[in-house]
């Protein structure tokens, strides 16, 4: 027969409660001790800032540059460089269609012409120009010469040449063309252009110079196909505050070509 004797609730509750309470307390203490012991003995390595060698302000190259010209590079392993080194031909990869968005409803397609593979971009069409008088000396890797009407600077990544269409300004004031050339080149940060997309490309930027030498209205004449290279070229002109007063005339327009040959 079942034990139907009546035992008070408190009897059960109290006894069990006390036992259970202490048991639970003991379990909690054991778990806490386990966690604490784990944390204490498990070495996690350096806290932030403890590695004194690397701590501190970042030491790195500046975004802007001090207004001094960078140090002159050592001579090129001196070759008779050509005026315009031919850019490396770039084969664009095959373009594939992205997968259709699941929410898109397929539109009835018109008859599409067969897909043509991307051809390498041809060089921008050169405007017909008068042949400049041939210089007496060949250009070597050593001199930074100005030849009328063309001014060439030998640089690490390629060549910089300033060509003067208007004979009178360029021949009289070749030193000014040179200054414009070097000032913009100094402010061109080639690391702003994505090297994967820009190698071998060139972009032409046109800007005006007013009487006091301040450049204005820089605009792209021919894009290079690399948006980052185009932007870096525009920014190079925008960075320049002035070239010095114009030696003659009250404004002049400059067409400046940026060749990106090497990151």
């Amino acid at each position, binding site marked *: 027969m079942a034990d139907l004797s009546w035992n008070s609730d408190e009897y059960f509750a109290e006894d069990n409660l006390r036992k259970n309470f202490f048991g639970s307390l003991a379990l909690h203490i054991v778990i806490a001790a386990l966690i604490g012991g784990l944390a204490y003995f498990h070495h996690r390595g350096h806290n932030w800032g403890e590695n004194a060698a690397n701590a501190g302000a970042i030491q790195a190259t500046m975004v802007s540059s001090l207004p001094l010209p960078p140090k002159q590079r050592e001579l090129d392993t001196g070759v008779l460089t050509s005026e315009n080194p031919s850019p490396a031909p770039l084969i664009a990869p095959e373009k594939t269609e992205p997968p259709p968005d699941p929410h898109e409803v397929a539109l009835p397609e018109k008859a599409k012409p067969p897909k043509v593979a991307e051809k390498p971009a041809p060089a921008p069409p050169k405007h017909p120009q008068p042949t400049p008088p041939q210089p007496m000396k060949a250009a070597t890797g050593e001199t930074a010469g100005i030849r009328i009407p063309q001014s060439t*600077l030998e640089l690490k990544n390629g060549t910089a040449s300033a*060509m003067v269409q208007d004979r009178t300004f360029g021949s009289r004031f070749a030193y000014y063309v040179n200054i414009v050339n070097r000032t913009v080149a100094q402010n061109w940060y080639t690391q702003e252009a994505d090297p994967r997309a820009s190698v071998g490309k060139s972009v032409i930027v046109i800007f005006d110079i007013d009487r006091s030498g301040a450049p204005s209205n820089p605009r792209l004449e021919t894009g290079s196909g690399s948006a980052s290279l185009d932007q870096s070229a525009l920014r190079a002109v925008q960075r320049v505050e002035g*070239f010095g007063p114009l030696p003659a005339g009250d404004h002049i327009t400059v067409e*400046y*070509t940026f*060749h990106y*040959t090497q990151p």
Partner: protein
Amino acid sequence: MTYRRARSLSHLLLRPAGLLFTAFALLSLSSNLYAQDWFKTETSRGVSNIRIAVADFKATASDPQTTPLKQTFDSTLFNDLSNAGIFDIVSKSLLPQTSPGAPGEMNLAQWSAAPTSAAMIAFGAFGSSGGRITVNGFLFDAKNAQFPQVLSKQYSEEANDENARQIAHRFADEIIFRLGGGVPGIAETKIYYVKFSGGNKEIWAMDYDGASQHQVTHLGTVSLSPRISPDNSRIAFSSLGREGFQIRMYSLLLNRMVNFPAAGGTNLSPAWSPNGRDLAFSSSRSGDPEIYIADSNGGSIRRATSFRGPDVSPVFNPKTGSQIAWISGRTGLPQLYIMDADGSAVTRLTDGGYATSVSWSPNGQFLAFAWDRKYGPGAPGGQDIYVMEVATKRWIQLTHEIGRCDFPSWSPDGRHIVFANSSNGRASSTRIVSMLADGTGRRNLTEPGADMPNWSWK
């Protein structure tokens, strides 16, 4: 999508009408290019310095005074152009042995050939007769045989050594302005500094190359941190008087002290705003040194900082005049901070060490300051000049192990920094040194005993 656009464009161009249109557009565009005034240039990267040859000027008069004056002139011109930081100067031993005095006597082929290989030539004639110096100076472009002349200047002054130097400075400044992209040269600027002798410290002035050092104040007490006003009319400095350190004002136009109201506490390190109307300084009149801004006569004083902890050495942003950089000890060791001129937008720039004496570059982009990054007991110490870019907080160290460096000050062209250096760490052997802003080209400007240089604004 590129694909679609190419299709429609090639579609358009391949039509006969399209071909005609393209040809017409090309032709009209190219003919347009001929009509206007313009030139075309290109680059691939980088630059090179302009190679300039400075010839000895030709002596045109037989006055016995000419020779020593011409020597001063020649050496000053040579030093100015080689210190400019933008030229590759041809050394004297490589020059041809001629002294052309006029454009007709100049043989460009001789100067542009090796070993000279000059791109620019500075030459001319120098003569002294009847108590006056007459100088004709020319700057020729050696590569441009058709039109070589870039500059042609004539100077005439009273005959003495100081004027020979000043004419050389003016001619060098003209050359630097023309060839340096429109930034004026610093050859005519001055440096104001503190010279200590006996127990006193007085304010002295000298040319930017250390010549012509002369005393400015004769107060017979300790005067510190001279700051010349932007229009070169007044020097503000801090001087120990009866009521402690006060901001004092010396007028260079009147050659005497002018009035500036005194106040309680210790008042130090005045700094001019670029429009010359405001003066910021550090004052402890309220008990704790804070930055105050007053106008140039000392009126309308307003407080700019309000945090506990010493705030000293303010300097305005010389490009905009709307920001102040200063040193604050609110977190313990003195650190570099910038804020707007009304006291808002406080930003901390250094993250440790002991930073002092900040100077803001004229183009507003850089701060030069003295910093001891490894400061503390047992640390190697060593205070050097650092330049930090304000926009990115990245810094470079300019001086390495030349002793204790302090009080950097930028030149007005932003290419040079002058500072105080003590090679053995003792205060008594501090001298003033100038260098290019990238840390090269260090030159001693004074003997030991000079400190706290300040480069004038123009």
